[in-house]
C-alpha cells in the first residue's frame, strides 16, 4: 500500500505525456526500430483518454517499470483515444488505461494504472506466476 501511495505521489511530479500528431506518441529506448534492435524486444502500447491523473500515473509507472526491467529493449506507444477514437476498436479497448503488449506474442492486456508492479510484471510475463 505504501508503495502505491509513493507511486501516486511520484506521478504528480511526473512530466506530462509527450504530445505528438494524431494523438500517438512514441517513447523508444533506442533510436532504431525495436524489432531490429533486439529480437525479444517489447512493443507496448498504452491507451489513454486525455491527460487524466490516472493516465499520467499509468504512464509514469510504466516508464519506471520498463526502465527497471526492460532497459534498452522496449518501445512504448501512447494512444490517446480522445483524439483517435476509432483506434479503440482495433485493440478491443474498453478499460482505460490499458497497456497492450503487442510483442512478444501472445498479445497481453494489462488494465489499470499499473500501480501494482508485481501484477504488471506478471502481465508482461516478466515474472513467473507463483
Amino acid at each position, binding site marked *: 500500500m505504501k508503495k502505491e501511495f509513493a507511486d501516486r505521489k511520484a506521478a504528480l511530479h511526473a512530466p506530462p505525456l509527450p504530445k505528438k500528431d494524431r494523438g500517438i506518441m512514441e517513447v523508444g529506448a533506442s533510436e532504431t526500430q525495436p524489432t531490429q534492435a533486439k529480437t525479444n524486444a517489447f512493443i507496448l502500447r498504452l491507451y489513454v483518454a486525455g491527460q487524466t491523473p*490516472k493516465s499520467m500515473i499509468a504512464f509514469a*509507472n510504466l516508464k519506471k517499470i520498463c526502465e527497471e526491467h526492460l532497459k534498452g529493449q522496449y518501445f512504448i506507444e501512447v494512444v490517446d483515444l480522445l483524439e483517435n*477514437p476509432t483506434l479503440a476498436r482495433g485493440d478491443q479497448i*474498453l*478499460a*482505460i488505461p490499458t497497456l497492450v503488449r503487442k510483442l512478444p506474442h501472445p498479445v497481453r492486456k494489462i*488494465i*489499470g*494504472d499499473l500501480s501494482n508492479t508485481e501484477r504488471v510484471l506478471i502481465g508482461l510475463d516478466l515474472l513467473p506466476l507463483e
Partner: protein
Amino acid sequence: MNMPEEKSRLPKAPTGIQGLDEITSGGLPKGRPTLVCGAAGCGKTLLAMEFLVRGARQYNEPGVFMAFEETQNDLIQNVASLGFDLKDLITSKKLVIDYVYIERSEIEETGEYDLEGLFIRLGQAIDSIGAKRVVLDTVESLFSGLPNPLILRAELRRLFRWLKEKGMTAIITGERGDGSLTRYGLEEYVSDCVIVLDHRVNEQVSSRRLRVVKYRGSTHGTNEYPFLIDKDGISVLPITSLGLQQIASTLRIPTGIERLDAMLGGAGYFQGSSILVSGTAGTGKSTLAAHFVSAACQRGERTLYFAFEESPSQIMRNMRSIGIDLQKWEKEGLLQVHANRPTVTGLEMHLTMMYKAINAFKPKVVIVDPLNSFVIGGNATEVKAMLMRLVDFLKMNKITGLFTNLTAGGGVLEHTDIAISSLIDTWLLLRDIEMSGERNRGIYILKSRGMAHSNQIREFLITDHGIELRDVYIGSGGVLTGSARLAQEAEEQAAQIIHNQDVERRKLDLEHKRKFMEAQIAAIRSEFEAQETEAMNFIEQEHVREVHQTQEREDLALIRKADAKPNRLKGNS
C-alpha cells in the same frame, strides 16, 4: 440529440415489433435505457436487433449494436434467417455493429481503471451514423471479463447515465440470475423499463413469453404475453389489445344446408359470428364444415381451412365422396387449406401462423377443424386464451369462424374440453342417437345468439350428395331415427291405407243403400201408379155403367109409358 421536451406524456420510441408497441402503449421510453432480461436462448438478442433494424428502416433512427457475445459476422448470419439484411443497413450507414471482445485470461488488472474506452467506442459509433438507438448485448459479460466488480458497477451506472444524457433509446440485455432479474443486478441501474423474456417447455412444446415488469411513467400491459420468433422476426400477441369493440353484423350467411338455414331463423349464421360444431367422433362435424365452405365459395367468398387432423388431400377425397367438390374451389383460389399437426409448434406459433395466413389470404370464412386437438395435457387454459384471441381477431375482421370440437365419448355433450362455449355465438350439437341396434346422427341448435332458432332435433343423413336433414319421428315411442323411423313411417302408411279403404268402403255402402232406397221408392211409386190406374179404370167403368143403367131405366120407363120424368136423370144427362 437534446433532452426530450417536457410533455405531459412520456415520449416513446416505437419498436416496430408486432404487439410490443401495443403492450407498452407506444414503445420503449425514448431517450432512456430499457433492460431486457431472460434466460439463455429466449430471444433477447433478437428483440434488441429487431428494435434497431425496425428503428432504422421504419422510423429512420439509426442504431448501434454493441455485441459482447457474438461477432459481427455471426450476428449478420443469425438474423439473416429472420429476413434482416444487416449488411445492407451497415453499408447504408443505418447500423453499426461493434463487437467487443473480452478474454479474461488475456487481461491483467494492475490498479484502478475506468471504462472510458467503452464510452469512446460507443460515442464514436453513435456519432459516425447519428444514431438514436443503442443496444448493449450483453453488457454483463463485462463482469466475467473484467476484474473488480466495484469499479464495473460504478462505470455501468455512469454508462447508463451517459446514454440518457445523449438521448439514446437503449436496450440493455441481461442474463437472468437466480432470484433476481439479472445475474449482476443490472435492474438496479436500468430502472425506467424492464422487460422479461421467458422460454418454457410444457408437455414437450415450447412457448415464449414476454412481460413488462416495470415501465416508469407509463401504463403498460402487465400480463405475460406469448410471443414467437419466426421468419419475420418477433411477434407478441397481446390478448387485451383486441377487446370487445367489434361491430356486430346483421348480415346473414347461409350454412350450405337449406334445412339448417331454416332451423336458424330461416337465414343461417350471422356474418362475423363464431360457430361451434361439437359432437362425438364420426357425427359429421367436418362434413358440416365442408358444406359451409362450399356454400361460401359458391358465393365467391374466400375461405381458409385450418386442418389439424387430416391432410388437405384426405379432406378433399372424403368430401368428394359425399358430393362436395372442394378441389374446384382450391383451384379457383377461393379455398386454402392449411394442414398442420398441433404438436408441430406451441400454441402461440399456431395462433400467429393463423393470424398471418388470415392477413395474407383475407378470407371471409375461417374453419378450424378440430379445436380440441390443441389440448395436450393440462394446457386447457392456454388453449382457451388462444381461442379467445382467435375469436376476437376473427370478429374484429368480420370473418365468420366455424370451429369443430370433438367431444369425448361418454362425456357431457354440452361441454367443450376447452370451455370456450361462452365465446361462441352459434353452437350446433351433433349427437348420435343409438336405438334398436343402430346409430344415427341427430343435430340440434344448443344456442344461437341473436336469432330465433328451432328447438327441434333433426336427424341428419350423410348422403352421396351431402347432408340431408330429416324430421325425426317424435311419438309415443320417443324420438325415432334411422330405420326405426322408417319402420314407424311404413307402419303409419299402412294404417293410413287401411283407414282410407275403410272410408271408401263406407262411401260405397252408403251409395248402395241410397240406390236400394231409390229402387224401393221407384217400386212403391210404380205400384201406386198401377193401383191408381186400376182405381181410375174402375171409377170410369162405374160411371159408364151408371150412365148405362140410367139410360136403360129411361128406356124401360119409355117402354112402360111412364109420364114422370126423373129430375135427377135430367140433371145427369
